[in-house]
């Protein structure tokens, strides 16, 4: 009898410890969430914003050497140039009040805005601007930007509020490049880890793989940001990001796929834009059999882009026909998207003509960390099988992709998306000129090279545009790549938030976002 009581006591003790542990911890967890994040109720406890981001700011935070699109996207709120892009793709004066361009289009005279302060409290002057131009020209890892700045003869201080920039040759895109030259203080050297700029938000802290914290900059020269503090929470794993969304731990997440935004909680609304990427099956034009234009065209006919969109994104996304996405309204040529309708018969015929009546085997190399690209590759492999091409999808890490595929050019085909570093046609098209170091697919076309060279030599906007459009057509007709789509960019945002804007660039403007309640 005694033993039985003891055993009962024992097991009861075990149970109650377990239950206490459970209940106690659980309550503590829920309590803390309410205090820390603005969720469920819709009304924030403080004027704060929690943004979920899928990529850590895992590179240098220096304005000129930062590389990751995810880093540029967030630091857009911290750094500013003399001009900055707005949501419609125009360049508006930012740190400069005005810009006078000389008759020969070689000298740009910027009048600086008065009373602009850096986040560290020092005032911005002409010296800082000149320093920024020179540092950017020397260190930028964006080769189209550094190429543009290579034409820079000099950047000079005229007086405290005036800077004159002289070019060696006219460049009609110069203001676009100016917007990428972020202005930083000339006496601060901690940019790689603690950025200091002039933007509406100042950088507070970052915790590796956890968060990046920004705070409203109260002495901002322009319209102040609406929220006091932004916490960018990092969820590098797609599933973790989904879990956080389902639990209501974040207020805003960009760059989601259509399948990810299904079945979300009531507190969210979904906005749809485009990613501003050229997603394609990029073909190594230097490797057999892709050195044969008929094979490349056959691939284009074999691929059913509508079905790709249906299978990967429920039909969302914008079809593309060349290396240009629709946010560039001026340059985008809609007619190219139907150049190669889905036609397996024609694909087979072209393959037979090229000497592959039974098809061939190929590999599609995809960076494993980009789910949309992996998904697209899987669907493409299925579609190519229908015309006798055995495509094997090989996932590689991003770094391996960069080393082997991008720089080593050691691949057959690959699915990725290229974005534009700035709002110029060159940012997307220069890449495919014969001698370009970034011409990963080794595309060779003297016609294409000539068109681009011509376009960059003239300043008349209409003529330039038509030359760029012709160049796009060459890419499409030569079937340089199998162009697929500009991915749908689904944004999930708390219903009580307003002011979110889609940009034609890969940036997230936090300054206009506000709580309505």
């Amino acid at each position: 009898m005694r033993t039985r009581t003891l055993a009962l006591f024992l097991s009861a003790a075990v149970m109650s410890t377990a239950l206490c542990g459970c209940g106690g911890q659980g309550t503590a967890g829920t309590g803390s969430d309410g205090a820390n994040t603005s969720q469920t109720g819709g009304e924030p406890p403080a004027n704060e914003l929690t943004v979920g981001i899928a990529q850590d700011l895992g590179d240098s935070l220096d304005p000129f050497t930062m590389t990751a699109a995810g880093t540029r996207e967030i630091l857009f709120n911290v750094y500013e140039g003399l001009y900055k892009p707005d949501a419609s793709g125009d360049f508006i004066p930012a740190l400069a009040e005005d810009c006078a361009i000389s008759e020969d289009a070689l000298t740009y005279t910027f009048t600086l805005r008065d009373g602009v302060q850096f986040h560290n409290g020092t005032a911005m002057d002409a010296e800082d601007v000149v320093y920024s131009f020179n540092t950017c020209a020397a260190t930028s890892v964006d080769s189209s930007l550094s190429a543009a700045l290579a034409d820079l003869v000099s950047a000079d201080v005229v007086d405290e509020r005036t800077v004159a920039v002289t070019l060696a040759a006219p460049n009609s895109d110069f203001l676009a490049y100016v917007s990428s030259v972020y202005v930083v203080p000339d006496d601060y050297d901690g940019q790689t880890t603690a950025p200091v700029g002039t933007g509406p938000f100042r950088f507070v802290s970052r915790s590796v793989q956890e968060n990046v914290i920004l705070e409203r900059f109260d002495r901002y020269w322009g319209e102040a940001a609406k929220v006091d503090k932004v916490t960018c929470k990092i969820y590098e794993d797609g599933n973790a990001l989904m879990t956080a969304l389902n639990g209501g731990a974040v207020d805003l997440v960009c760059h989601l796929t259509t399948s990810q935004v299904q079945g979300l909680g009531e507190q969210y609304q979904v906005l749809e834009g485009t990613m501003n990427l050229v997603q394609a099956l990029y073909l190594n034009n230097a490797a057999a059999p892709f050195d044969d234009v008929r094979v490349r065209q056959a691939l284009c006919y074999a691929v059913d882009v509508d079905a790709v969109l249906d299978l990967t994104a429920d039909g969302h996304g914008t079809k593309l026909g060349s290396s240009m996405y629709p946010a560039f309204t001026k340059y985008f040529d809609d007619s190219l998207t139907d150049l190669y309708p889905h036609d397996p018969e024609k694909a087979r015929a072209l393959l037979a003509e090229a000497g592959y009546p039974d098809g061939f085997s190929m590999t599609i190399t995809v960076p494993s960390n980009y789910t949309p690209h992996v998904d697209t590759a899987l669907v493409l492999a299925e579609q190519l099988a229908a015309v006798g091409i055995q495509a094997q999808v090989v996932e590689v890490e991003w770094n391996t992709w960069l080393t082997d595929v991008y720089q080593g050019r050691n691949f057959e085909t690959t699915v990725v998306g290229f974005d534009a570093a700035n709002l110029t046609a060159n940012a997307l098209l220069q890449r495919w000129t014969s001698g370009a170091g970034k011409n990963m697919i080794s595309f060779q076309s003297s016609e294409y090279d000539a068109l681009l060279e011509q376009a960059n030599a003239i300043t008349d906007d209409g003529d330039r545009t038509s030359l760029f459009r012709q160049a796009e057509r060459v890419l499409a007709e030569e079937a340089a790549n199998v162009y697929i789509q500009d991915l749908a960019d689904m944004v999930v945002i708390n219903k009580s938030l307003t002011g979110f804007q889609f940009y034609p660039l890969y940036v997230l403007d936090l300054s206009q976002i506000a709580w309505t309640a």
Partner: protein
Amino acid sequence: MKKRLSGRAAGPTNWFLYLGAAITLVMAALTVLGCFWTPYDPGAMDSLSKALPPCPAHWMGTDNFGRDIFSRALQGMGATLFISLCVVAISGAAGTAIGAVTGYFGGWGDEILMRICDAITAFPSILLALVILAILGPGKWNVIGVLGILFIPSFARVARGEFARCRTLNYVKSARLMGAGPWRIMVRHILPNTAPVLLPAVSIGFNNAVLAEASMSFLGIGVGPADASLGRMLSDGQSYLLRGLPWYALCVGGTIVLLILGFSLLGEGLQRRKPAF
């Protein structure tokens, strides 16, 4: 029936053995079936039947490409079992050989090999596998190679213990007196007697191999998307789970659990069968 004092004593029916064998046999039969026939082409996509719940046409439902999950699970089980089989074959053979030699002969060779085994086991094997797979890149054969090598110490240790113990037993001594060479003694005399100890080790090894492969594929460093293994499918299924579509992860996770459960029951049963030393 009176309470038994010792749980080790085999009861009238060794349920562990029978149940484990039954589960393992069924899973193996399904896997073999999956090699020759699946209800649907595991790779076939269909935009009209995306993300369906389980129904008579699709026993486990379909994924976001409209692929039949049951067909893919059959195929995935094949990939997982193939990898585990190879891993156990490699590590079992090499481990037993190493353990036999070091256990029988002893000496400084034994000391060095056991220190190396200690060094390997001192570190969680999945961490080691991570670092090594980072060298080789993901892929089926790389996973097999890495796990095959990492599992050697566990077999070597068991085999060494047995061979060292048997070396001094009378039947070995008499064989030696009759002029049998050391290799003959090891292979013909001792090896068959180590079966009661080695068999459970094999089943535990299988168990661990399935678990390790699933974990690595779950982390995305295992096999590629072409040969979908169960771990990879589970990682895919996790995102559905959160969207209120739980069948994918539950079916695939359940399959992994059944596979491991079968082996672990089998191992338990085999251990219970062996007489106490």
